[in-house]
């Protein structure tokens, strides 16, 4: 049912609470497994190790959720809401083909577990095609209501693009942040 739900409803931006949903699905998995730990066949292990060397400078290992731009748990996604462009033909820094990147956006401040530093992340939306429908993700760290636009992930930031139709969201490092 929650699989169902995740499928249906995470497709719609602003509705999704990916992490909790995923944790739910995980729970369900454990239920099915009778609570047992899951021994993996070589296949799975192999898969799990793939891409381990692809990490960019300063980024967590790409075979960990925190280092995988296609994962909702990617470190830059702490205040994102939408479909991950990395799953839609783009990347965490580039829009998929045929879309335009919104010039205006909201920002988050996320801690990079690799260097333990806070970075200012710009979540530019990609616009001009309808919902990508893949890798829906919602995180609300430091997220604020609509009257605080630069901190609100509820807003359709495609408002600033040629077409306001929302496709997916990026997560671009503007720089490190100085907290106080």
């Amino acid at each position, binding site marked *: 049912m929650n699989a169902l739900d995740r499928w249906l409803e995470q497709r719609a931006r602003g*509705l999704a609470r990916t992490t909790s949903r995923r944790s739910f699905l995980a729970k369900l998995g454990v239920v099915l497994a009778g609570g047992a730990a899951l021994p993996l066949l070589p296949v799975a292990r192999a898969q799990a190790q793939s891409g381990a060397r692809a990490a960019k400078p300063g980024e967590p290992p790409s075979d960990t959720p925190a280092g995988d731009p296609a994962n909702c748990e990617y470190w830059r996604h702490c205040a994102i809401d939408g479909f991950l462009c990395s799953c839609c033909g783009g990347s965490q820094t580039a829009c998929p083909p045929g879309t335009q990147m919104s010039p205006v956006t909201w920002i988050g401040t996320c801690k990079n577990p690799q260097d333990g530093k806070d970075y200012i992340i710009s979540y530019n939306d990609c616009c001009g095609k309808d919902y990508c429908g893949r890798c829906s993700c919602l995180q609300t760290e430091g997220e604020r209501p*609509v009257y605080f636009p630069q901190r609100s992930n509820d807003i359709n930031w495609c408002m600033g693009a040629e077409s306001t139709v929302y496709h997916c969201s990026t997560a671009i490092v503007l720089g490190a942040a100085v907290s106080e």
Partner: protein
Amino acid sequence: MRLKIASIGLVLVAAAAFADVAAEETGGVARTPERWSAHTVWVSDMLLRRSALFDADSAAMLGSVYAGQDLSPVLPLTNAKRREVYVASTYYSRRTHGERPDALVIYDSGTLAPVGEVVLPPKKASNGGGVALGALLDDARFAVVFNQTPANSVSVIDVVERRLVGEIATGGCALVYPAGPRRFGMLCLDGTALAITLDASGTEASRAASEKFFDAANAPVTEKGVRLAPGGGRWLFASFDGTAHEIDFAAQPAPAVKPPWSLFSAAERAGGWRIGGRQHLAFHAASGRLYSLVHRGEADTHKEPGTELWVYDVAKRVKERTIEVPNLGASALRDLMKLPVGGVVDWLLQAALPNEGADAVVVTPDDAPLLLLASSDAPVIAVLDAKKGELLREIHEPGLAIGMLVTP
């Protein structure tokens, strides 16, 4: 079933002789009920980009209105006086691209067919929450639509003359909350509330700001406020930290703010209780009861669904009781498996599946009020007796991705 239909005509002649089920007419189109029951609710859907009208007593879908390419759920403005429904939306000549007109499409509330439209400035705001993006003011004549480009402004529409009156710049203030015959309120980044009053022609007559009453950065109020009195200016907003702020947008000379009160006791706060959800507040004006979805969680979990619904007496500012949120996920799965209510599997599902709670709640305005609870986690709406807190029925397949629950 290898039937030869040489001639439908012939068949029908032959049929008349012995058919038990009489031939029927084609072309019929239903209407919505002449009088909409107080238990009628709009259910918006982000994926279908529509709002469907449901009768919470029969659980039947009565009809629907669809929008354009907006990201937001469609929240129709229902004009009972004129028997019309308004949907403000953004369109593109090639659906996802091309020329963009924004328009307020006018539907007859009986036929739910479009009967007119007013073209709007192509600035309509759109957001995932969909809350407070449009309002019909209480004279049933002027509708206001919030614009964000990201510059904030409001479009004013005269629904009687079906024309755009104009656009009002609103600076650091966003969203629209109806607050009287020709007045609406807004929330501002500086922590104040703004009230804008229109004159008889729909142009701005005056505006006034309240004192600062919240901290937008550290203890912001959610957009999901509830109106305390039909037709009036009094609203209640809750802040991320669980403080209730009562505002009267209609107070003169400026919006007045009552002393805030806390939705949580010190102990509850210590226990990690927080407000949260896409539509986490509901208010029943006749009884003065506030319904608030709450959960246990960390800071910034203001979009987490509520596992409990707490009921408050707003006049006394006290929590009255707790309503357990039903396991909507289990109910939906049981229905999808076509299993009976109260069956063994139903019991197993209720027990085995974690209750993810609800993230939207609404209460009907009548004297036998119903509570509707929905979760973006489950294609089902739970209908409860608001006074007893008991589950009365479920509405299944309300849509693909439930947005908001709106009483007309």
